[in-house]
């Protein structure tokens, strides 16, 4: 069996182990976080550079006025999410919509792109109450959303 090391060496070894683990954690986090950046999409990005079909991503934008309808089963809703210009993504969501979800307001849909180009949402994040806005859409009106869309696209490259 190995005899215990000298105290000084032991301390250095411990410091080395801790540093290695922390640096590994940091690098791993940095790598994973870079991938996270592509986890959030705006409609025009989803059109121009779509994620893989079935990959879990978030789609953020504005709910187009006049596009919201409930399908015959009574639980599935369909609406269009718009961004800048004429890029629109049809979204389907089967579920209870957030309390303040409405046409013309911001929404972040969590889900995945389908083969037919529509987006199937598993979860909608809308204004939960007057104090809560999804981080990505904070303080935006429909017009501003388009502008931010542009800025975000640059950053996401």
């Amino acid at each position, binding site marked *: 069996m190995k005899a215990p090391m000298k*105290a000084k060496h032991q301390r250095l070894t411990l410091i080395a182990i801790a540093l290695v683990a922390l640096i590994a954690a940091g690098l791993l986090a940095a790598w994973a976080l870079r991938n996270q950046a592509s986890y959030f999409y705006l409609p025009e990005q989803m059109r121009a550079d779509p994620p893989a079909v079935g990959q879990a991503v978030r789609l953020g934008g504005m709910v187009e006025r006049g596009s919201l309808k409930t399908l015959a089963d009574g639980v599935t809703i369909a609406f269009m999410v718009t961004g800048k210009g004429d890029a629109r993504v049809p979204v389907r969501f089967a579920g209870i919509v957030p309390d303040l979800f409405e046409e013309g307001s911001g929404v972040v849909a969590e889900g995945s792109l389908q083969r037919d180009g529509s987006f199937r949402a598993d979860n909608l994040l809308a204004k939960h109450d007057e104090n809560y806005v999804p981080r990505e859409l904070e303080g935006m009106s429909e017009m501003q959303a388009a502008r931010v869309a542009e800025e975000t696209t640059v950053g996401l490259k």
Partner: protein
Amino acid sequence: MIAELGLAALWLAAALAALQLVCGALATHAGEGHDLALLTRPAAILQGGLAAFSFAMLVWVFAITDLSVKLVAANSHAMKPLVFKLAGAWGNHEGSMLLWVTVMALAGVLIAAVERRLPERTMQATLAAQGFVALGFYAFLLLSSNPFERLPIPAAEGMGLNPLLQDLGLAFHPPTLYFGYVGLSVAFSFAVGALVTRQVTPEFARAMRPWVLGAWVFLTLGITAGSYWAYYELGWGGWWFWDPVENASLMPWLAATALLHSAGVLAARDALRAWTIMLGVVAFSMSMLGTFLVRSGILTSVHAFAVDPERGSFILALLAIYIGGALLLFALRAGTVSEGERFAVASREGALVVNNVMLSAVLAIVLLGTLYPLLTEAFDVRVSVGPPYFNPVGTIFVAPMLLAMAVGPLLRWRQDSLGRVNREVALVAALILAALVLVSIVGEVSLLPLIGLSLAGGLAVASLLPLGGRTLRRVPLATWGMVAAHFGIAMALFGMASDSAFTKERLAALEPGQSAEAGPWRVTLDRVEPVAGPNWTALQASLSASYKGGEPIVLTPQARSFWAPPQQTTESALATRWNGQLYAVIGQEAGRGRWQIRLWWKPFVTWIWLGGMLVALGGVLALIGRVLADLKRRSVTRRARARRDEARALVAEPAE
């Protein structure tokens, strides 16, 4: 008048904190026997009394709904039930900060009055550090968030409290977390004291440990309660969202867990000295950072209701002073703290080092994930970081930690070999593998829950093994605490993994009389009717839910509308069995007389919180065990001294 009394007491308390700082610092500088040293402890005790009085005055103005006080007008309402009026006193920014300093000052009273184990000079330094930390918070309260501020003209009626916060569980949730944060601030003061006088000894670890344990128990309870609150109150069926505010409470917990274990090594074996001090600094930094994130509103979150950039900068400045100062002190002094005892790789210390390193790595991952959106925002890129980041990346470090946790308690201190415990290790490994194979055969389970389920099984058995071959009645209380806490972790892990692996979800549009199935449950909508509460109206669905065709249970989920302030909330209804929970929510009208009903069958989800409570219970047992052992040691020493004095007196007598 009452508000002014409270404010005056607060100013006096701040002055006493300054006195405590100055006396403690001078006494530390001058060494033993300085006259000013006599003032430090009374200053701490009197300060605690004044802070408590001030807080009592705030609760009083809330109880009588004194609308000339700005804070009451902004957060309360005459129509509110009394218990929420009282809870309203700390359910807001100013009140919660006052609660923070009050608890901190009371902790100061306890140290000043009770703690006698450490050298007096270290105590003086510790109390000075404590006064310094308190002073910053007093300044913050008095200069930028005065809770007793009057309105020039009293308001006619209060604004009310956010209805999401009108919940008994939540009334006690923030204070619980604050107790945890404050406990860590005390551990921080001890660490600074020990660093200043270079007395990083097992005695120091023993004096600090109860505070860390207590803080850790409160943080555990706070996180558990907060998670349950989010689960049933937000109506989303999830129990952890990796929300910045949740992370803000998780990070101090991770640091406190590491600190707890390294303080254990220092107390028992006089090793890991500098590391323990470092963790003391880190743990308090994390609670300060948590306060900063929550109180500055820099991260928008479901929970952040008080947002103010000025306050954010204030807390950031405090953060920089305390943490920067402590790290500087650490950098200057750590080299002079001599190395502790040595140990082999295969020893209990070795396993605890693995635990500490892995916990720190997880902490780093959560910290980076929480701050990353802030960082990118500086470059005008908005990103959201969620479960796809935290879950897999965290698991990489949590899994080895859980393995070390299974084996570590079986090892001996200083030097051991895995060969000695090979039977136990083989048993645990076999269990984990068997669970892995069994679960992957039985059902389609994705990778992370699969790992979770199998590790939970192995850990549950492994956590009981330290009791093997011992007379249960003679097992020390602290060991029971460890066993309970480790078993609780296994339970919680099982609940988390089984919730994400086996949850059945069903959304249906039902007419009264129709029914839907979710897992083994059959749920029938009986009717939907309006109901009214003290400050809300609601649509309430009556559901009959029957488990595997058994006797139906009535569930009444509601969609509530509050009128002060106007807001809608979803009140879920739960049916709890030992093996899981049925979670029902009512949604909107779906047309043609139908209503949206959402159902989840969540197998073993309650084990998450039961496990969390067991972990906290483990902490309480360990705390009681340690304190009792300490009291016993004290009384033995006292009796031995008395006997020695007596003997000396007997010897001395004939000489007279």
